[in-house]
């Protein structure tokens, strides 16, 4: 398998696809990494409020150079800004929002997602790896809709959409939808249902890159 050539949607296009699905007025938590790109692609006229679990509702864009504030950061510890109408709060209140089901959408990265919606995204379980979980287990347990945005396969061509996760779980049966470079896939009672495929991607190709049987 050629692992250097990118197939299907670019990272930006993936973020655009996810951004288009966010309803107006949603409260959204974006995970570290690729999910962060999504905020840049929400269409004009749609107002989305971003929550960052370290204590800010109403997170704004990255600050202008020179305007960074070491005490205004997001969960990825990057500098951010606060919109007009934002508010700050402590961690117990922040996770009241998460665990209490007040957020509409959590968009996360993934190591593996299984056809039942199990998510593994915090640890490869390798000996010597430093386990670090952060807020991921709280997000998947509490937020109403959990979306994953990830490359369809690993860099060395392994499945990320699997029959059963081999890595330690973040949560069981929690993922509702997956955005990859190849397709948008809904996790349904019946299994993985393909909603949309990237231009040039055939169903057969997609199935080849996916361990569980897909529903067209």
């Amino acid at each position, binding site marked *: 398998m050629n692992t250097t050539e990118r197939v299907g949607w670019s990272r930006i296009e993936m973020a655009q696809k996810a951004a288009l699905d966010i309803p*107006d*007025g949603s*409260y959204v938590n974006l995970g570290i990494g690729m999910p962060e790109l999504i905020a840049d692609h929400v269409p004009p006229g749609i*107002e989305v*409020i971003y*929550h960052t679990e370290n204590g800010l*509702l*109403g997170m704004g864009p990255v600050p202008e150079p020179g305007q960074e504030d070491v005490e205004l950061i997001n969960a990825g510890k990057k500098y951010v800004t*606060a919109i*007009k*109408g*934002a*508010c*700050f*709060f402590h961690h*117990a*209140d922040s*996770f*009241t*929002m*998460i*665990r*209490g*089901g*007040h*957020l509409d959408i959590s968009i996360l990265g993934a190591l593996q997602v299984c056809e039942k919606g199990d998510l593994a995204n915090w640890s490869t379980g390798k000996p010597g790896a430093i386990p670090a979980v952060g807020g991921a287990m709280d997000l998947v*347990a*509490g937020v109403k809709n959990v979306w994953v945005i990830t490359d369809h396969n690993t860099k060395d061509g392994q499945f990320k959409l699997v029959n059963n996760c081999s890595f330690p779980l973040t949560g069981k049966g929690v993922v509702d939808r997956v955005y990859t470079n190849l397709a948008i896939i809904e996790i349904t009672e019946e299994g993985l249902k393909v909603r949309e495929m990237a231009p040039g991607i055939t169903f057969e190709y997609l199935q080849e890159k996916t361990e569980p049987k897909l529903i067209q």
Partner: protein
Amino acid sequence: MINKLVGSDAEAVSDIFDGATVMIGGFGEAGSPIELIHRLIDLGSKNLTVVSNNTGSGNVGIAALIANRQVRKMICSFPRSTNSVVFPELYRAGEIELELVPQGTLAERIRAGGAGIPAFYTPSSVNTPLAEGKEQREFNGQTYVLEYGIKADFSLVKCQSADRYGNLTYNKTARNFSPIMCTAADITIVQAKYMVEAGEIDPETVVTPGIFVNRVVEITDPAHESILVASGERYPR
């Protein structure tokens, strides 16, 4: 654009259905959302379960809601106060149910409901009649009682300032149960003394983040229960 301001108090409460659980902010009259309660009386929804620290006084506000026979059950810590006549009469007549909860346990149960915590252990009420029939357990040699989170279909609260996102501030001891009730309801309905522009409330001083609020109605000059009671007001008149 997010804008949680609704046109009227009547509209704000219009979908409170028969059999709903409704949390009502306030400790005594401080923080009691009288106008929202009176619109709920106008609406006439029946068989409500009301969660509120007290049962009101005189014949206005919560007391009037109870007198109008809309409340099947009260969950509260102190259903007795000066000028409180409506609840005691119905309770003695067996016509209203009471779940009496210690005040701190009531607060913690509401907070737990809002925070996704289904149950917790507390030392309050152990060895008293209010712990009877409840599960008990020892931790580090001390006995605790298991209490459950409470959620509501609706919360009705009064605040001082609100913006279009539903960010709220309160006034002094009128804050009491309202911030936790905002977190524990499917639909939180707020009467605000002042509507302000987004950003006018310093982000460091927001008490209730807007995520917990669904609807805000501006009531610039809210009635005060003690003044209504002193002047012998009844609702409906």
